[in-house]
């Protein structure tokens, strides 16, 4: 484990402690509502971490990632409903479909910079949503347009990716999140990660050095879309009923981008921090003000984003990690004394 040698012991202990607490949490929290909030926090942290592969490291701002959540959900659910294929296999199939779509739209758009790429991804996501809303039947698959898909309840069944309790969902998404964070860690330290960072910051200089910037951006896009789609299948199995607006709407795309920007894009922990800060706001406003002021959470996120960009343009992960480092240093000193 050479890569861990430059990480301080206190950091390792802290990370292990946080993980232990999170894995033990369902023992103490039994309220399904609370568990659901945690599940959604982890799901959004997972989706944002997946987004981060292209939105963070490749230096572009995709604003249509809900399209890939939707592709994942629709692929696995349609395969399940039509051929009774286990959603676990459908999950991988959804990932492959999403990666293929990602490459398809990345090829012409990843050369665009700044707002142009963001606009292109919005157009793609909205186009796909409208398309799905207007398709009743696609070959053997009953897509059911705007009515959405309902997954029949079969009770506790691992093969069918269905559980009556929230606890299994909690562990599945927490594990998915941990795995994607580990993948991010290795990605950042890999050659591909460096080439992406180089192309993101100084595309022309990177190209002048012979780095095939667009090739690496495409790789990042494919990985990102694949992982995002896995989250889509998870979401479908969690709620068991979804329709185009609920699973591939723009508000989800925006929320992912908000979480990344406020937490700190192109960092490992930024998406997690952002999800922990923003998701509860989204849940609580939905529970208490959902009828009177739907979408209020997006307004709040917008305000938070403006304030964060004004005072911490690299995201909140920067001051937080600075405080943690000060804390760790003190602990380290006291331990040595």
């Amino acid at each position: 484990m050479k890569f861990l040698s430059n990480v301080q012991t206190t950091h390792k202990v802290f990370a292990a402690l946080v993980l232990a607490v999170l894995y033990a949490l369902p023992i103490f929290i039994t309220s399904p509502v609370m568990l659901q909030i945690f599940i959604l926090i982890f799901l959004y942290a997972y989706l944002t971490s997946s987004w981060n592969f292209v939105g963070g490291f490749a230096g572009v701002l995709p604003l249509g990632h809900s399209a890939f959540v939707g592709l994942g959900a629709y692929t696995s659910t349609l395969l399940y409903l039509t051929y009774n294929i286990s959603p676990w296999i459908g999950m991988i199939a959804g990932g492959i479909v999403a990666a293929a779509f990602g490459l398809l739209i990345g090829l012409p758009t990843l050369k665009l910079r700044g707002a142009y790429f963001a606009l292109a991804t919005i157009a793609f996501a909205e186009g796909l949503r409208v398309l799905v809303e207007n398709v009743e039947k696609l070959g053997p698959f009953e897509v059911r347009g705007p009515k959405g898909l309902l997954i029949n309840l079969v009770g506790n069944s691992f093969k069918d990716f269905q559980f009556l309790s929230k606890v299994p969902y909690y562990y599945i998404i927490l594990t998915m999140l941990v795995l994607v964070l580990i993948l991010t860690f290795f990605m950042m330290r890999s050659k591909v990660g460096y080439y992406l960072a180089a192309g993101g910051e100084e595309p022309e200089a990177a190209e002048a050095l012979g780095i095939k910037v667009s090739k690496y951006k495409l790789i990042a896009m494919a990985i990102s879309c694949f992982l995002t789609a896995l989250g889509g299948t998870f979401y479908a199995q969690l709620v068991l009923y979804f329709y185009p607006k609920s699973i591939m709407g723009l508000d989800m795309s925006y929320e992912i981008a908000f979480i990344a920007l406020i937490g700190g894009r192109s960092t490992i922990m930024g998406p997690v921090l952002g999800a922990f800060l923003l998701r509860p706001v989204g849940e609580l406003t939905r529970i208490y003000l959902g009828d009177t002021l739907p979408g209020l959470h997006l307004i709040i996120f917008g305000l938070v984003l403006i304030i964060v960009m004004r005072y911490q343009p690299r995201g909140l992960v920067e001051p937080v990690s600075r405080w943690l480092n000060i804390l760790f240093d003190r602990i380290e000193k006291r331990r040595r004394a």
Partner: protein
Amino acid sequence: MSLIAIENLCAGYGEIGVLFDVSMRVEAGEIVSIIGANGAGKSSLLKALSGLIPATSGTITFNDENITKLPADEIVERGLIHVPEGRRLFSLMTVFENLEMGAFSRRAQKDFKKNIQDVHELFPRLKEREKQLAGTLSGGEQQMVAIGRGMMSSPKVMMFDEPSLGLAPVLKKDIFAAVKRIAVEYGTTIVLVEQDVMNSLAISDRAYVMEQGQIVIEGTAQDLLKDPHIKEAYLGM
């Protein structure tokens, strides 16, 4: 046959033409300066040579091979490297990591050890600052990294775009001396784009003067230093 031969090259950005009928040649082992005012097309000429902007007509031949239509990475692979204007470092990477980024091509990976030694010999400062983030370096040190990063690609030709831009006069001298050393010690051919006409002619063998996207004067550095037009327009004498 010259190492680089450019024939009637036209290039630009989209519809807008910037280079018009540019022809020039560079012999192996030479230092050739391209001088001219802002907006004369010097940087665009380098970008066209390194494949960053497409040529609309004309040909670029390197080592007897037509490279006009090749993408940037293939041109680097053949040994032509462009050290861009304004240093363009990867600010969140360390000095060492920036140098590593220069060794992208297969050829460069093979020579990695030797190249890093050469860079450290030329700029001992970069060895001392190996682990420092590039964004925190001074302007002169950043330029050293930019040059070093170019050397890491095992180039036959290095093309510098205004390496002395924004540096104090003392540091400028160091940078020009380093460019000269690269040519003398490693036999690298140099194409130098500069606005500091005096210093760049002083280390060059030959030079081209560009005005409004065209080459207007060419000659040996010695002759150009005596040219009345150059004296008046660029040296203020």
